[in-house]
């Protein structure tokens, strides 16, 4: 699967901003049908959803409907879900993660769940490792870690370094999720300014 670095950086920003609790969000992008019936997911963007009471579904439902409308307006679709739990020790799709991921999967059967593995940070820096692991729905209906290769676009180094920079400088606090947005709708849930700043990092330097 392919992941655009800006999407990755935003997910890391979201999890870092609310490191004391769980956060979740949706992955937007494209599904490429390979010749042999396989599907390859390309994650182009993320929409951060909740950082409080992630098991309550009212706001999640509204966020999903709006994410779907936004994705379609950009000729994309919802291709997955991301989740970071409050405990660094576990890397599992917990809580109502499977429920939301299942719902997404019912409309996109190549859907992927990205589950945070912040436990890695005990051994290595944010600039040097990938903090989310891909999970896919197995034939038994359960979400399990997948060993599918992930290609970061433009490059892995840029993705991880940018994530580390944004968190170290405190820039990640600018990220707005749906929870933040419903408290003050002038706060931009689409995070257009932050996305622009992130993408600016990927421009070739003179």
């Amino acid at each position, binding site marked *: 699967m392919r992941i655009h670095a800006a999407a990755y950086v935003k997910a890391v920003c979201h999890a870092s901003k609310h490191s004391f609790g769980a956060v979740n969000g949706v992955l937007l992008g494209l599904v490429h049908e390979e010749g042999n019936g396989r599907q390859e997911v390309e994650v182009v963007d993320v929409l951060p959803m909740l950082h409080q009471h992630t098991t309550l579904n009212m706001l999640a439902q509204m966020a999903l409907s*709006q994410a779907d409308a936004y994705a379609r307006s950009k000729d994309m679709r919802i291709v997955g879900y991301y989740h970071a739990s409050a405990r660094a020790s576990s890397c599992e799709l917990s809580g109502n993660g499977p429920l939301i991921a299942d719902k997404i999967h019912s409309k996109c059967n190549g859907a992927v769940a990205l589950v945070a593995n912040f436990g890695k940070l005990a051994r290595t820096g944010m600039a040097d490792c990938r903090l989310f692991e891909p999970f896919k729905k197995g034939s038994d209906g359960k979400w399990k870690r997948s060993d599918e290769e992930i290609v970061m676009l433009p490059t892995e180094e840029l993705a991880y370094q940018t994530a580390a920079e944004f968190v170290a400088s405190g820039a990640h606090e600018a990220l707005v999720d749906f929870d933040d947005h419903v408290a003050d709708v002038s706060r931009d849930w689409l995070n257009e300014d932050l996305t622009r700043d992130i993408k600016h990092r990927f421009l070739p330097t003179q």
Partner: protein
Amino acid sequence: MEELRELQRSHERKSMRIVAIARQNWSAVMGSGDEKWGFLEQIFTASLDMPNAEDVRKRCLQALEKRFPNSQRVQRLQAMGFEADGQFQKALDIYNEMLEADPLNPAILKRKIAVHIGKDDIPLAITALNKYLELYSSDFEAWQQLTDLYIDTQDLQNAAFCLEEVMLSNPHNHVYYCTYAEVLFARGGSERMTQARRYFAKALELNPTSARALYGLHLASARTMTKGSKASEDVATVADLRDGSKEQLLALYEEQGANPTHQALLPSVLVGSGKQ
């Protein structure tokens, strides 16, 4: 220092900022007279949240230990340091020892509950927190913590009960009414959906610009209509609520200057939600 004072007042957990302030202004902190000890405690606590802040942690603890050599409060901070490092048994040993001398000390009882949460032993944390609340039933921070634990473990019936306690003592806080309504919404069923609608409406009354309450009112009304409302409920009234909340949301987004791209999505989303 003013920022530190402000953060003490607001209780915001801006640990990264507090540690940065400490690093840049250490001499100012140490020179702030009697306020110094409060700052050191605040900085110590913040440093527990941050990676690579052991130096700050040590400096604070050393200064506090020197000034208050046999202090229970300082001992508690030491134990919190163990908690932050994942050395839960060491922390528990200190707390248990402190409780032997003072078995009903609320701060220590709550630290033990924090250890259970840190170890991810949520059932034990819930049991201990319930026992604590039997003793200290007006500790609203504790009721809120218990509410969160119940919501996280999806025990919504008990979450609702806790929220009722919180709402009783905070009858003007729209956030609790919204959360209560969301719990009812999540539990489902036409009666609860009707109740949820009422609590979202109450939240809206307390805070007329709450998008959260408007979304809740909109979805709960739409849901009540699709699943069939009670005979005594006027379908037209519920439809009015659904449509009225939609109008109010669109107006709110416009007034508050929300992102126009986002605003443009709303009409299609809000009309469609009645058909789920």
